[in-house]
């Protein structure tokens, strides 16, 4: 009797919906479990990210963002719940980690600190070599990746990565990940510490990969302005849970909620919100300074008639 009743309670493992790049179901994670230092870092995360989305993950330090993204290429193994990444079941006993990590490129904070080789070429090839790609092919793949991030292959390949500027170093580190041609790109604060030009270079590269090659992008960021202008969807983590999951425009309309979570309302969102409160509607797709400017001027024209 007890056996049958227990069996009936088991929740069947859900299958990921079609076209899902990431599918998490009741994902939980505790650091140092069963010890006085136990810290519940993720609580019942349920999430589906479709292929080709550009998702920003935001939240206060310690909200669980990094713990979550480290699950995506199995740097952290599933403790409880289910997680499917590109149709692979990561809660399974032995997922094919090699295949997974080839398809999920992970760019950590300050990736240039991980540069180590004598030359740029050797550094970019390191990952490819470990995935068993032969020498000639490595070279072409590295060339493609370096050109993709906007560096001239012949000029840079024999340089020491340590002689480059901050922005160049970051792009070399990115090339090392992009060389594998990942289908999902996970970036943890990709623009931290860069100057404004370096920031926009990295962001436009990520955006290009997303739009032109359909790469699914998961970007952790503290800069709400860049989140607002680039992501299609924003997920806010708070205390290990998903507090909000919305489009950037919808999310940043909730000014008091955003501020109570110690996040900032992006400048252009604050401007448009004020206009909306006064009955002037700016289309949701207008997010950059120039788009907002054009929409505002159009509103004036409409009133002049």
């Amino acid at each position, binding site marked *: 009797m007890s056996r049958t009743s227990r069996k009936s309670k088991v929740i069947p493992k859900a299958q990921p919906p079609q076209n899902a790049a990431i599918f998490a179901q009741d994902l939980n994670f505790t650091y140092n479990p069963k010890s006085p230092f136990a810290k519940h870092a993720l609580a019942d995360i349920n999430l589906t990210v479709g292929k080709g989305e550009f998702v920003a993950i935001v939240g*206060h*330090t*310690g909200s669980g963002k990094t713990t979550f993204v480290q699950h995506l290429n199995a740097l952290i193994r599933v403790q409880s719940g289910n997680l499917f990444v590109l149709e692979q079941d990561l809660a399974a006993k032995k997922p094919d980690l090699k295949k997974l990590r080839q398809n999920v490129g992970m760019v950590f*904070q300050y990736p240039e600190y991980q540069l180590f080789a004598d030359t740029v070429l050797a550094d970019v090839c390191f990952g490819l070599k470990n995935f068993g790609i032969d020498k000639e092919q490595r070279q072409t793949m590295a060339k493609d990746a370096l050109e993709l991030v906007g560096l001239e292959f012949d000029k840079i390949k024999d340089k020491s990565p340590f002689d480059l*500027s*901050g*922005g160049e170093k970051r792009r070399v580190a990115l090339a090392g990940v992009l060389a594998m041609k990942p289908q999902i790109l996970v970036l943890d604060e990709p623009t*931290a*510490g*860069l*100057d*404004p*030009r*370096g*920031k926009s270079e990295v962001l436009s590269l990520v955006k290009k990969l997303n739009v032109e090659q359909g790469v699914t992008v998961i970007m952790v960021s*503290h800069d*709400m*302005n860049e989140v607002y202008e680039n992501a299609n969807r924003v997920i806010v983590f708070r205390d290990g849970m998903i507090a909000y999951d919305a489009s950037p425009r919808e999310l940043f309309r909730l000014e008091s909620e955003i501020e109570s979570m*110690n*996040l*900032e309302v*992006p*400048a*252009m969102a*604050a*401007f*448009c*919100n*004020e*206009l909306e409160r*006064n*009955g*002037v509607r700016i289309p949701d797709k207008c997010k950059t*300074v*120039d788009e*907002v*400017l054009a929409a*505002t*001027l159009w*509103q*004036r024209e409409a*009133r*002049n008639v």
Partner: protein
Amino acid sequence: MKIIKLDNVSFYYKAYNEDGTVGRAMGVEDVTLSIEEGSFVALVGHNGCGKSTLAKLLNALLLPVTGTVTVCGLDSSKKENLFEIRKNIGMVFQNPDNQMVASIVEEDVAFGPENLGVAQPEIAERVYEALDQVGMRDFAKNSPHKLSGGQKQRIAIAGALAIRPKVLVLDESTAMLDPLGRREVLEVAHKLNKQGMTVILITHFMEEVLDCDSVVVMNGGRVVAQGTPNEIFDNKQLLDEVGLKAPRTVELASKLCAAGFDVDAHCRDARKLGGDVCQELREKVK
């Protein structure tokens, strides 16, 4: 009074040429600059433009190859002045984790005065005073590695304050912090400035620059402009040349102004700007 004066200062790093001979790489070149006591100065420019080199020249971590650096009237090229100069310039760097030297907050803050040979009772006094100034007294007995990034940076600032410097240099101290941490650090910096501390803020966040008294723009190792935030952000050509951008609100305000809207071209508050625009649109309808 000018608390810091740089006259034609150049500094070069040692570097190896392609053929293996020793050459030099530029750090800063021919910089002439003076900083008023009690001011809040932002130092901006793209990565590798010489900002950090300049900062290190200020407290004699680096000595100029040519030219002179004078801090509180003391020439940094004279060896007997070094100690006094370093006592007067407190520095906080980018990565909070790299600046923690002890396993308890109060010991970490005490590190500076201990090395200066300050007597024990006074060390305690200085440590608590410094912790009060950054609002971290309650954490005195905590372990630094369990604090948030913003809290760690405030401890690092306290560590600098315990030396009782006249100048505080923040070298991208907010770059690795989340929005709350950044706000905490900046609030402390502005509070100290109001109490008379000279603050030099090196940053890539143009929003932080808005609240400074003056801005020094560097490019290719040289100081290419100096002025108030409004003057700098009005100079589009300069910003393009050095790869900087005005904060979004300021950019929108100046573009709206150029398009004939009657708004403050230097408006930094997006909500106020929105309100002013609406006011004007409503008048149009009437």
